[in-house]
C-alpha cells in the first residue's frame, strides 16, 4: 500500500535535489527518506542525473558582436516604425537629398530657360488670322493694291503726287504698304484720290492701334 508520505516524498525528490523545495517540504521528505530505501535510491538516482546535467559546456559565443547585431536590428526596426533613420544613415540620406535638390534646381532652371526661349520663338506664329494685327512700320497709313497694268513709272508718279512711299509689301509683291513721306503728315483726302486713280484696285487705311 502506498503511503501519502511516500508519494509526497517521491514527488519532492527533484526539488530536494535542485534545492528549491520549501523548508517544510524538505523536513517532510527527510523524515520519510530516512525510513524508505526506495526513495533514497530514487534520490541517489536523481542526484546523479542532476550532477550529470550540471556540466557546463563552453558554447557561448562572443558577447559584443552578438549584441551589436541585436542593436542593428533594433535600430532598423525603430527606423521603420518611426520613419526615422539611424544617425549615420540620416546624414548620408541628408547629403543625398541635398544633392538631389541642387540637381533638381539646375534642371528646373534649364527647363525654364529653354521654355522662355521657345516661347519667344513661338511669339510670331506661322499663321495669321484676320483679326491678328499685321506687323507694320510705325508710320504705315495705307494698304495699296495696284492693278497689274499699273507700271512702275505710273506707280511712282501716283505715290509722289500724294506724298506717299512704299514701306512694305507682301511676299508676292502684289500688296503694298504705304506711308507719308513726311512723318506725321496726314491727308484726309488721299484715300479718295488714290481710289479714283486709274490702275488702283484697292486702297484701305491702316488703323495704327498698336
Amino acid at each position, binding site marked *: 500500500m502506498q503511503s501519502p508520505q511516500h508519494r509526497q516524498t517521491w514527488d519532492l525528490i*527533484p526539488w530536494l535535489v535542485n534545492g528549491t523545495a520549501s523548508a517544510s517540504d524538505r523536513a517532510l521528505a527527510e523524515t520519510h527518506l530516512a525510513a524508505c530505501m526506495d526513495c533514497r535510491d530514487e534520490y541517489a538516482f536523481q542526484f546523479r542525473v542532476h550532477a550529470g546535467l550540471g556540466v*557546463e559546456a563552453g558554447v557561448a559565443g562572443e558577447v559584443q558582436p552578438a549584441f551589436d547585431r541585436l542593436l542593428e536590428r533594433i535600430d532598423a526596426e525603430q527606423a521603420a516604425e518611426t520613419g526615422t533613420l539611424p544617425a549615420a544613415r540620416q546624414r548620408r540620406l541628408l547629403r543625398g537629398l541635398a544633392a538631389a535638390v541642387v540637381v533638381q534646381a539646375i534642371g528646373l532652371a534649364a527647363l525654364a530657360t529653354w521654355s522662355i526661349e521657345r516661347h519667344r520663338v513661338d511669339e510670331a506664329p506661322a499663321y495669321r488670322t484676320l483679326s491678328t494685327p499685321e506687323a507694320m512700320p510705325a508710320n504705315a497709313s495705307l494698304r495699296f493694291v495696284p492693278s497689274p497694268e499699273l507700271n512702275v513709272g505710273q506707280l511712282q508718279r501716283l505715290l509722289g503726287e500724294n506724298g506717299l512711299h512704299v514701306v512694305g509689301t507682301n511676299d508676292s509683291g502684289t500688296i503694298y504698304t504705304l506711308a507719308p513721306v513726311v512723318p506725321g503728315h496726314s491727308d484726309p483726302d488721299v484715300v479718295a484720290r488714290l481710289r479714283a486713280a486709274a490702275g488702283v484696285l484697292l486702297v484701305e487705311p491702316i488703323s495704327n492701334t498698336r
Partner: protein
Amino acid sequence: MLEDGHRRSLDRVSQRRTDQDHATGSATELEWLRAIARQDRVAFEHLYRQYHGLLSRFLARFTSRRDVIEEMVNETLWVVWRTAGSFRGESKVRTWIIGIAYRCLMKQLRDHPAEPTYGAGDRDQEALHEAAPDESEARQAELRDWLRHGMALLPDEQRMTIELAYYLGQSCEEIAAIMNCAVGTVKARMFHARVRLRNTLPELGGEDSPPTHSAQA
C-alpha cells in the same frame, strides 16, 4: 535519518539555491528592466551581458548549431527590449526572461523538428570524454553520455522540465510560470520524465536497481 552523504548534498544544493536567490532576484535586474522600458540602452547592455552566457548554455542543450543559439538568444533579448514595460513583477526577472527563451526554443523545435540534437554541443562532450585522465573522470564522462542519450528519448516538454529543474535550478512553481502551465502539469511531466529515464538509464541506479521504478512503496 538521511545518510551523511545525502544530507551533505542536500545542504550543498540548498545553500547554492539560497545564494542564487540573492543573486538572481536582485533589485539590480529589476532596475535594469525598468530602465529598458524607457529605452535605456546602457541598462539593456548590462542585462544582455548578464544573460547571454546563461541563455546560450541553456539553449545549447537543445541544439549544437551556434548560429541558431545566437539567433534564439538575440530573439529572446529582443523580446525583452520590446516588452520590458509589460513586466509586472509577478515573477523574478530571471524567470520571466527564461520563459521568453523557452517560447523561442519551443518555436524553434516546432519549426525545425529534425534539426536540434540533444546535448550541450556534442563535440564538447566528446572532448570531455576523451580528455578524462582517470577512472573517476571517465565514469563522469560515461554518465554524461548516458544522460545525453537518455534525455534525447524524452518528449520535448519532459526534457524541458528536467533541464529547467536540473540545469537552470528552477523551482516547480517557476517552471510552471516559464512553461505557462499548472504546477500539477509540471509535476506530471517530471514524474513521467523520471520514469522514462529510470527505464532507459538503469546503470545510473546502481547494479541492483530494477529496470523500472515508480512511486509504489
